[in-house]
């Protein structure tokens, strides 16, 4: 490890991350279709390869061989750049995500912030893509996406600030390290940090669903209202890249939830920790995302904002206050208890 120069290591990681995203996007689609199928008492893809495992390949080939149509009246450059604006920040976000103790492209102190910085660019991609399509449905969709993203950034960031208060660091590696040991050390169960920790996890998870435009918050691509939303006009790989970006964002959301609350690569059973634990937890969360998608109807914009302002923001603020109080009170309480015993 020592003699590999840093730039080459970074390059290897970026290539690895892109491969990871592409593979995941392909196979998460497969998984999503399988999950949807079984929830609906169907089989899902099964024709191409055993269990339909080669279906993503067929889909990918189809998408790639399709012509990228540029509709009349759009700005062709913006139209083509927009999908990349969704995918590239997602790829960049992966740079700071620790898959295991050493398997991280760049272990920087403000890793958490970096992810949010890149995630905020995502909105720009949706907005330019939707608006650049010169399609009214896409414009409505883009407007919805942005209001939704902005609205849910507030409770999400409040929760993240709470977590930073608890962990005293924005370094993702360190956050995971702090959750070493037994299951009770996971922040979701660390009630001594704040009694509302499991709720904080739920808030974070809900917000990441909303941020990634997943059902029940998929207002942006509400197919029964807006056809396909901001990517209505995209065909072939334009659509494919949007799709990859969307799945990459889901993985990022689930990874962050895993790192912040579920102990990252730490193993609950005290077994040797490793990246497979991390991936197992992430995929479990992704399964939940899919499960939720295939269970609920879609909310409306008002329902969404209502949820955010009426429930998520007050509760996360209460959590913030409680955490602050606990940080000051817990040591006192502990010494008091110690003294009593």
């Amino acid at each position, binding site marked *: 490890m020592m003699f590999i120069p840093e730039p080459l290591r970074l390059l290897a990681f970026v290539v690895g991350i892109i491969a990871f995203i592409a593979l995941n996007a392909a196979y998460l689609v497969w998984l999503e279709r399988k*999950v949807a*199928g*079984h*929830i*609906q*008492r*169907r*089989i899902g893809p*099964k024709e191409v390869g055993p269990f339909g495992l080669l279906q993503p390949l067929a889909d990918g080939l189809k998408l790639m061989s399709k012509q990228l149509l540029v509709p009349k009246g759009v700005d062709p450059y913006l139209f083509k750049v927009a999908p990349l604006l969704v995918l590239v920040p997602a790829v960049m976000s992966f740079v700071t995500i620790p898959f295991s103790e050493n398997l991280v492209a760049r272990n920087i102190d403000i890793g958490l912030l970096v992810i949010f910085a890149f995630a905020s660019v995502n909105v720009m991609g949706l907005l330019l893509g939707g608006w650049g399509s010169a399609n009214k449905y896409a414009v409505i969709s883009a407007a919805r996406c942005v209001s939704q993203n902005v609205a849910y950034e507030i409770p999400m960031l409040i929760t993240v600030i709470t977590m930073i208060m608890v962990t005293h660091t924005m370094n993702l590696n360190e956050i995971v390290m702090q959750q070493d040991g037994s299951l009770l050390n996971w922040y979701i169960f660390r009630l001594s940090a704040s009694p509302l920790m499991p709720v904080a996890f739920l808030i974070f998870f809900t917000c990441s669903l909303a941020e990634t435009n997943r059902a029940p918050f998929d207002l942006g691509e509400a197919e029964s209202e807006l056809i396909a939303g901001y990517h209505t006009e995209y065909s072939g790989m334009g659509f494919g890249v949007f799709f990859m970006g969307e799945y990459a964002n889901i993985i990022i959301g689930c990874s962050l939830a895993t790192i912040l609350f579920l102990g990252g690569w730490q193993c609950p059973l005290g077994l040797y920790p490793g990246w497979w634990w991390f991936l197992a937890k992430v995929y479990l969360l992704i399964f939940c995302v899919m*499960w*939720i998608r*295939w*269970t*609920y109807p879609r909310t409306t914009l008002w329902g969404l904002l209502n949820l955010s302002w*009426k*429930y998520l923001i007050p509760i996360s603020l209460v959590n913030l206050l409680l955490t602050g109080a606990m940080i000051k009170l817990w040591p006192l309480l502990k010494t008091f208890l110690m003294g009593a015993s």
Partner: protein
Amino acid sequence: MGEYFKELFGGTKSLVVGLGITIKHMVKPVVTLQYPHESLKMSARFRGHIELLGDEETGASKCVVCGMCQRACPSGCIALAGEKPEGAKKKVLTSYVLDFTKCSLCGQCVESCKFGAITFSKEYNLAGPRKEAYIFDLKKRLEERSG
């Protein structure tokens, strides 16, 4: 305040219950039929396109060319013709063409037939590249079946 929490908990509970139902269905076996690999058994009364029935002994059509089916058909998709051979008592069918592209499978032709000369086929997965593939020469089909 109480209302607020009631709504919060009630709502959350309804969401959890929903998740429970879908996961319950997820572990149950699938109910769909894998169509091209397994084929469907049509019920005895299934109304497919029509088919001429042959006489059990001779194999010739039972049709007497009365034209009732042609008249009964709302869509005008049956065209039949017959001739009276020298010395015969009854007319003999020379051609019976069903234009299946127009047929609405109402079954009025079968009902109108007094002689039991036509029946419903059980064929249901018809697909073809051309329109002409659905202009059935029923007489030829009958001859192919019986001979």
